[in-house]
Each structure stands twice: as structure tokens, then as C-alpha cells.
């Protein structure tokens, strides 16, 4: 696994030379791809047409008129702008906090030889797969006790803490690939551990952090369960529970809901397309051996 933490695979960069794929199979793959895209393409199309038009003629009809009205309505009247802002207010601090703390953790687990290093690492690995429901009641109670229930802080704290497991897991394996001699020579020059961490280790972790950040951004931004449990005030809701809430109010106006949904996906889609390689690199960490 070690080497793979850095090795951000470039999609389709290395192709195997062998006999071509059977045309029948290739056709199947193409048909599949178009079927896979139908829900997305259909959503975009639906979001551009009026409610009456969609309702009267159904999905597979030619729209009477194409307009951005639904987007305008979703943005202003339905309050998608507020929800979107809330999502950023939660996601960005959680993302930064989690990556900073995980990089400290990763550095300590690799740099220092102490008995607990391995057990702590395995504890984080086990934490990766924990069902969220196992934490739901105590975390709900904890946020109440701390007085942060129904505030941004509840989500920021929880996401930071929970995502520590995955971030530490990835960065720790990344750190493993850095030769220890780099740190030793700095030690001899009299640098303190924190100086070595900040000046040498952290910058070296940057490619790993890039992968991690794209992935974590998507995960935290798209979280639904914790937003549902920890934030009830409509003006504080992030986009995920915000959308679910709107769906309750405008049940039948599907073109409007879908326009809101597309706005909701825009930030993660932008991050994804801009940093696709890192995204894939992050996803496959742990799946392959170096």
C-alpha cells in the first residue's frame, strides 16, 4: 500500500497492449454508459422546463420552452443560496481542522518509535468502517451537553473528529514513504520536532493532502445524516437537509426541486472536474498494494 498513497493514478495513462475488445462487449459498454448518463442528462433537461409543461407532457416530451426560471426561483425564493452558504461554513473549517490534526497525528505515528504507534494506527483503521448509527445517540447527547446542538459547531466538531480516522490513515501511509534520513539531518541541525514537521514533513505531505482534501470535501459537503440529526433550525441547514426540506414543501414541483439539486451538486462537481486525478487517487488508497 505504501507507495500507492502517493501514486495518484492518471486515468487511462497506461494502456495494456493486447487484442482489442470484442465489438459486442464494447457496444454493451457504450449502451451502459448512455443508460448511466440518462438520469443526469434527464435531470438537466427537466430543470430547464416549466412545471406545467413537464407535468402535462411527461418526461419524454420535447420542452415547449427552455429557461432558467427554475434556477432563479430555487436560488432566491427557496433559499438554496442560504443552504449552500451553510454547507461551506461547515465544510471548510471541518476540512482544514481535520487535515491539520490528521497530519500531526500521521507525523507522530511514523516519526516516533513508541509502543502505541501501531495500536493507534489500527484503531483509526477500525474506525473507518464504523456504522454511523453506533455514534448517533451519544453524539446527539454530547452536542446537547456542550451547548452546540443546532449550531454549525456541532457539525464542524463531529466531521473533524470522525474524518480524522480516514485522514490519518491516508497521511500516515503517505509519511511512511518519506525517507527518515530527511528528518534525521534536520535533527542534527538542531531543529525541533515541530520545526521539522512544519518545514519538512507537512510540505512533503502536500500531494497526499490534495487527494484527501478533494475527497473529504465531497464527503463532508454531501453529508445528510449528521445534518439531519444535529441541526434542526432551517436557517442553519446545509444544502443536503435543506433540499430534503424543500422537497417536503414543493413535493409536486419536480423541475424546481431538480434545479435546486443541480445547484447543490455544482460545488462538488467543480471540485471533482478540477481535481479529478486527486479524487481518484484518494478513493483508491487502501485498495491497492504498493
Amino acid at each position: 500500500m505504501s507507495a500507492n498513497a502517493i501514486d495518484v493514478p492518471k486515468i487511462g495513462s497506461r494502456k495494456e497492449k493486447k487484442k482489442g475488445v470484442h465489438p459486442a462487449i464494447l457496444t454493451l459498454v457504450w449502451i451502459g454508459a448512455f443508460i448511466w448518463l440518462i438520469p443526469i442528462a434527464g435531470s438537466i433537461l427537466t430543470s430547464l422546463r416549466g412545471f406545467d409543461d413537464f407535468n402535462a407532457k411527461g418526461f419524454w416530451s420535447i420542452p415547449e420552452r427552455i429557461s432558467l426560471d427554475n434556477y432563479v426561483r430555487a436560488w432566491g425564493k427557496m433559499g438554496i443560496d442560504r443552504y449552500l452558504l451553510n454547507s461551506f461554513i461547515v465544510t471548510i473549517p471541518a476540512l482544514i481542522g481535520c487535515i491539520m490534526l490528521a497530519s500531526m497525528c500521521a507525523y507522530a505515528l511514523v516519526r516516533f518509535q513508541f509502543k502505541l504507534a501501531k495500536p493507534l494506527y489500527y484503531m483509526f483503521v477500525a474506525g473507518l468502517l464504523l456504522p454511523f448509527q453506533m455514534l448517533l445517540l451519544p453524539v446527539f447527547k454530547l452536542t446537547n451537553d456542550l451547548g452546540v446542538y443546532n449550531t454549525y459547531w456541532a457539525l464542524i466538531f463531529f466531521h473533524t473528529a470522525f474524518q480524522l480516522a480516514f485522514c490519518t490513515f491516508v497521511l500516515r501511509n503517505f509519511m511512511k514513504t518519506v525517507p527518515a534520513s530527511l528528518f534525521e539531518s534536520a535533527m542534527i541541525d538542531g531543529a525541533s520536532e515541530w520545526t521539522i514537521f512544519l518545514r519538512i514533513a507537512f510540505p512533503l505531505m502536500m500531494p497526499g493532502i490534495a487527494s484527501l482534501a478533494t475527497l473529504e470535501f465531497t464527503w463532508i459537503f454531501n453529508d445528510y445524516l449528521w445534518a439531519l440529526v444535529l441541526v434542526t433550525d432551517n436557517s442553519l441547514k446545509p444544502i443536503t437537509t435543506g433540499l430534503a426540506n424543500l422537497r417536503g414543501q414543493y413535493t409536486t414541483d419536480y423541475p424546481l426541486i431538480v434545479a435546486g439539486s443541480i445547484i447543490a451538486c455544482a460545488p462538488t462537481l467543480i471540485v471533482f472536474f478540477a481535481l479529478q486525478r486527486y479524487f481518484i487517487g484518494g478513493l483508491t488508497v487502501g485498495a491497492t498494494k504498493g
Partner: protein
Amino acid sequence: MVQAPVRTVNRQQRALRQFLTILSFLAVPLGLYIVWVIYPTFQTLLLSTTDWDGLSKTFNFVGLENFQRLLGEEPFQKSIRNNILWIVIFITIPPTAGLGLAMVLNTDVKFDRFLKIAYYLPLVLATVVTALVWAQGIYNPRSGLLNSFLALFIGDAAFKIQWLGDPNLAIWSVIGAAVWRQVGYVMILYLAGLKTVDQEVLEAAKMDGAEGWTLFRYMVFPMLAPVTTIVVVISVIDSLRSFDMVNIMTRGNPFDSSNVLANYMYLSFEDYRMGYAASIAVVLFAISLIFIFLYLREVMKQEES
């Protein structure tokens, strides 16, 4: 003689300083993790043996009563049956499709980038959005994509199909949407795995005349075994975590026919049946533990090599 004690003191001092340095790095992250993750895990175990209602300050210990009640209740039985169905589908269909796609797209195919993006785009979308789009855009009996499409062949009868409203169809429809999301994920994992397959060994096998299915069955697939383990673990864990889709598409309706443990636990929480909800979480946890150990074993193996 005089130096020896000094050196011990020095060593102790150094050990102390080393300890403090380690602590300065670990204290905050570990503290957070213990407070928000480790301690809550044990607290849920404890709560599962109580009758806590979420509001009162006190509660009584009721032993295993919650679990006994749980096992006898229909929503629980339906939920666990649906979870098993979900797992069975998730460890068969997406891995097969994902591996097949990875095998095809790992070769010299034209427009492979477009094809890859088409398959893994759903993964980037929020599950909430996926669930909304499928529930209303695709499965809606009257205006949905699916029935409108079927109507082209079977006429108006198609509009009677209640994909999410029919107790016999609901869970299949929800899982269908989840599969749409999962295939691309598995494909990515296998594509990454295929890049680590030893090309020289493959070339040698080809020299010996192995090709097509034989090459795949006896060479490529065994070499992908570690990836397959991870894929299975991830698929099972994702099945057990299936909350968003169910909660948004059906909330487990009709009559719990599409309920799953994660959603049933949440509904009990909403009803302030906290002890009961905790016991559902513990059941989920117990099933997950098997796979947590499987995964941990794989990681430990990699750690030693």
C-alpha cells in the same frame, strides 16, 4: 561513579521530553477522536441495555430486553432481511460489472475517459440528490422517466406501476438506484488494482499461450485478490450504511417493506426510543465487526510486508 546517576537522570529527562513531544502532536487529535468517536461507541453499547427516552436525565437498566423485543418485531425482521438482500446484491452485481468495465477500459479503447466519467459521475453526486432524482424523476408513477418509457411499449398500463409504493417492488427500486451509484466506485478500485498487476508475469503467461478467459481466470483475477477483498468489505459496509437513499426515497415505507437497519434505527431515535435505537445500532455494529476484522487483517498483512 559520579557520572552514572547523572546519565540516568539525563535519560529519564530525555524520555520525558520525548514523551511530551509525542503528546504535543497527538493530544488534540486523539482527544477529539476519543470524545467524539471512541467513547460514544462504548456509550451506545451501554445505552442498548437501558430504557432511556432521550429526554429524562435518568434511565433504568433493562438488560437484554431491547434485543429480545427487537428480534420479535416485524420492522426489525424486515429491515434485516432487506439489509441482507442489499449486501447480496452489492457484493455480486457492482463488483461483476465494475470488474468487467475495468477490464475493458484498461485496454486501448477509444474515448475511454468519457466512458469512465459516465460510470463514476454518480459517485460524485450527493446521495441526497441521487435519491431525490430517482424517487421523483425516475420512479414517479405518472411523470417519471421509467414509466413514461415503458408506456411507449405497454401503453397506459405502465403508469400503474408503483416503483416505490408497491411493497414488493420498493426495496428493489431503492437498491437499483444504489447500484447505479456503486458500479463506478468498484470500477475505479479495480482500475487502480489492474495498474499494479505485474505485466511481466502476464506477458510470460501470454507467451505460454494463455489468453482471453483463461488468462483472466487463472492469472489476472487471482492477482487482483487483495482488491477483491477490499471491494467486498467496502460493498458490505456501504450496504450497512445505506441510510440516505432509504430515508429520502421511502423512509422504509410501505409497511417497512423497504426499511433497513440504519433507517429503522433513525426512526426509533426520532420516536425518542433511545435504548431501543441503541440496540439496533449494536446489531449493525456486530455485523460490521466481522468485516472490520477482515479489513484490519488485510491492512496488518500489508503492514508486515
